């Protein structure tokens, strides 16, 4: 129960005449993006997708084999020792064995390219189902030699989707199915130390730079919060729109909040601890683009000048977003991931949104043809980097959204955890998640375990910490769509503790 009288930071009084001279400085952000998901400018689409599965299997198989070997070596089930089998094809009926391979889900509702081709359709039909999941789904395990169907209740204990690599133990029954007794996942990859790539800002350095504000900081934070240091703000689904103004005031409030103009001096002091904003996809609204289409069809003569109908093209959403960024950038660095709705490539990994989309915030981005990061860093989706020394992995959400279609579950955090345990952040690429046909490397395989793993554009907020067998700890965050929940996520840059801020307009 709050009272108007006992609010510490109330500005409900007349100007006192005393000019507050608190010149707030934002804490600096240590930041090192990685180029893991960058594609070459000139890329070929001629190769086949099969290489990706092969690469993934060869990369992850040793890890699963290790786990499986340590678990099952010398195991005797019903007087029969478990034997290791190299290939799926080597499984003999009635013999107890274990084998490693790629999971393939046989799903009647899943779009199938072969079906499209046999029906003489050369463009894949738009996906209409929200879920591919059904009762008739069958789990199969395959490698380069063959494929075998897996049965057994134990498979239901963990979500499985096409493309993840597992080891299974069991024996083949008379139907040619493998009755699974147990299965193993590769589990979390090795985790780098904090500050593996970037140097921690040394104490003397920061003192020399900003001595006075630093002192002030300490006093203030002692008094107000126990926040040990900076915060990283993550938001997704801003969905700037030219026609739908239903959440434009919330966006304005968000800007004022991040700028540190809203609220009272002590709260503003807290806000100055937010060192970086990460935008995890869907910054521009999609509805915008459907409306003009109908109009354009109504009136016949369309003057297509530059490949699109200039009269029906609406640039307002991106202009609004540009304005938002341009106002924010002088005070805060921004990392911008594209999402499913953004003007970037459609297939995973999405390449950075081109800076030309942002005429007024472009000066803050890195000059072209340089490798150093910009103040406004438009990055790939998924993206990997080091922020405040922590290894951060983030996506715009498509990978989890696609896994969501495979399973009968709403547990987005569980799916995020599963991707870590599979060591593959986008197993369903290239099957149902559009992907670039990688040839030499499958970047979706997690080589190193992140400290912080966030996924944008999710229906609701969620966070938890998962732990690996070698002491890895990963903070998982499902970042909600701002349009849906008006929430932003703040991550403490020392402890990776999460808090959120909800903006509401009553």
């Amino acid at each position: 129960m709050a009272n108007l009288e006992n609010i510490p930071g109330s500005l409900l009084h007349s100007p006192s005449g005393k000019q507050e001279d608190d010149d707030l400085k934002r804490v600096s952000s240590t930041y090192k993006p990685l180029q893991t998901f960058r594609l070459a400018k000139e890329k070929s689409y001629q190769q086949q997708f099969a290489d990706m599965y092969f690469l993934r299997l060869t990369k992850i198989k040793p890890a699963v084999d290790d786990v499986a070997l340590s678990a099952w070596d010398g195991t005797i089930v019903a007087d029969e020792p478990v034997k290791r089998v190299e290939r799926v094809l080597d499984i003999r009926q009635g013999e107890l064995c274990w084998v490693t391979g790629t999971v393939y889900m046989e799903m009647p509702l899943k779009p199938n390219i072969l079906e499209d081709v046999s029906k003489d359709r050369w463009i894949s039909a738009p996906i209409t189902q929200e879920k591919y999941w059904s009762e008739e789904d069958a789990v199969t395990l395959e490698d380069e030699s063959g494929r075998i169907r897996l049965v057994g209740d134990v498979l239901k204990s963990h979500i499985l989707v096409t493309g993840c690599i597992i080891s299974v133990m069991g024996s083949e029954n008379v139907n040619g199915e493998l009755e699974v007794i147990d299965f193993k996942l590769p589990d979390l990859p090795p985790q780098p130390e904090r500050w593996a790539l970037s140097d921690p800002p040394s104490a003397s350095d920061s003192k020399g730079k900003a001595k006075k504000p630093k002192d002030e900081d300490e006093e203030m934070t002692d008094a107000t919060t126990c926040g040990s240091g900076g915060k990283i703000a993550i938001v997704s689904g801003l969905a700037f729109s030219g026609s739908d103004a239903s959440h434009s005031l919330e966006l304005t409030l968000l800007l004022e909040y991040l700028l540190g103009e809203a609220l009272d001096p002590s709260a503003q002091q807290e806000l100055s601890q937010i060192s970086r904003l990460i935008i995890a996809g869907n910054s521009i609204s999609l509805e915008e683009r459907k409306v003009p289409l109908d109009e354009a069809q109504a009136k016949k003569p369309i003057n297509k000048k530059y490949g699109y109908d200039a009269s029906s093209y609406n640039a307002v959403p991106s202009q609004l977003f540009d304005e938002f960024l341009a106002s924010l950038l002088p005070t805060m660095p921004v990392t911008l991931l594209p999402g499913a709705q953004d003007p970037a490539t459609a297939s995973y990994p999405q390449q950075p949104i081109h800076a030309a989309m942002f005429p007024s915030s472009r000066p803050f981005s890195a000059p072209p043809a340089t490798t150093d990061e910009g103040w406004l860093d438009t990055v790939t989706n998924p993206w990997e980097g080091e922020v405040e020394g922590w290894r951060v992995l983030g996506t715009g959400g498509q990978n989890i959204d696609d896994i969501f279609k495979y399973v009968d579950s709403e547990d987005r955090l569980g799916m995020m955890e599963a991707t870590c345990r599979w060591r593959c952040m986008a197993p369903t690429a290239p099957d149902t998640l559009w992907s670039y046909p990688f040839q030499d490397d499958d970047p979706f395989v997690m080589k190193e375990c992140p400290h912080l793993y966030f996924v944008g554009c999710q229906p609701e907020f969620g966070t938890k910490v998962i732990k690996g067998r070698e002491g890895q700890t990963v903070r998982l965050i499902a970042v909600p769509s701002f349009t849906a929940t008006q929430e932003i996520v703040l991550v403490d840059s020392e402890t990776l503790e999460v808090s959120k801020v909800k903006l509401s307009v009553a």
Partner: protein
Amino acid sequence: MDDYKNFLAQQILTEDKLVSVPAIPATYWLPSPREPTPANLQPKVTYRTLSRTLKVHVNLAKQMLYDFHKSQNDKNPGSLNATYLVYGTRKSSDEQDGDVEMTDSVSEKDETFSETVPTQTLALIREEMLPDTLRQYNEVTSIHVYSLAPHPMKDLQFLSDTAQQVVSMSIEEDFSPGANKTYGTIRNPNARKRERRAGAPAPAPAKAQPKAPVKQETKPAIKEEPKAATTTTAKKVAANSAPALKRQGSSGGIGQMFAKAASKPKKPAAPEKAEEVPTPALSDEGEDDDEPMPEAAKQKVEEDGKSRRDRQAELRRMMDESDGEEEEESMSKPASPAEEPMDEDTAPAEPEAKAAEEEPAEVVASTGGGRRRGRRRVTKKKQIMDDQGYLVTIQEPGWESFSEEDVPAPKPQKAKPAAAEKAAPAGKAKKAAPKGQGNIMSFFGKK
């Protein structure tokens, strides 16, 4: 100090003042205040617009709004409506009753899946809702007046218009650090901007931007170009000019592209590069021509020098479309070799038709680097579904582009005249291919 009161009175109370206190000399904000104002045009002042207009700290502006609101409502209750910004933690029990009641099942699940985290709520509320809202909070850490308006707002979303005003006001002020200090925006000493070439104004309004760099680049390009034209360094065959032009689309202004083309040949590695860059990655050619045979290269130098001059002449003409100055110079000088292929190119529609009748096996578009490229006639299998639903495979003639090792390699000694001949058919073949999408050069050439 009190001038903010006058200002606020002018801004907000014009409508009411006309009735109650006509003494205020108001420069009317609204053209006809008597008419009912549409909601989005209602006068409204937020702390940000006030701070930008009076150039005061936002926190001071918040207090000014409060003071004005209080003094006005003391005089004349209900004459002003305020909105408040409240920041703090809500009661969790209330939250479940009030906020998430529709998604009870989800919130239950939420507990099982996710940790609960501290949530701060930043709420913008109307004056009349303030007591109710405060009751829902566990703790309010901060509160201030957000905006004032003469009437209760039906839809608070109209307040977002004021953000536009602030943006337009601050664009003029050029995000200087001083501005941050005045308004109380948190400063970031590390913020860095890219230096704009030739010192164009940094965060210029969007409209001005595209113009400035293009202009600047055009000038040096033209100056540099006559020099470059004389150097007969290697460059790709005439056939390349079209793709090269396409490339300019990706790299910005015409002038910039031109400057690039002019400066490149000075580097020895340039020919290979120029060859590769425009090749669309989707085509199957352009893979192995990194190592041109030395003799062929020498011979290419000559032919290329010529075609390059042609190309530059054409390009210059393109530039003159806008620049108009050096027209005579470029037309008079080496323009004639440029004209010849052009003239040939204009008529190729018929030869193409003839070619189709005669059905030559292939048309060689270019030879270079030990490879032949062109299009050849092939019979393609096509599968269609007939009206009874059967798949029918028919064979139909078609063209297919190819690129292969140069089997009957043209001898370097002989190649000199041959190359000239070849260059022409090259242009022809290029021209003939898609009638719908003509060569952009012919557009500029035929004026």
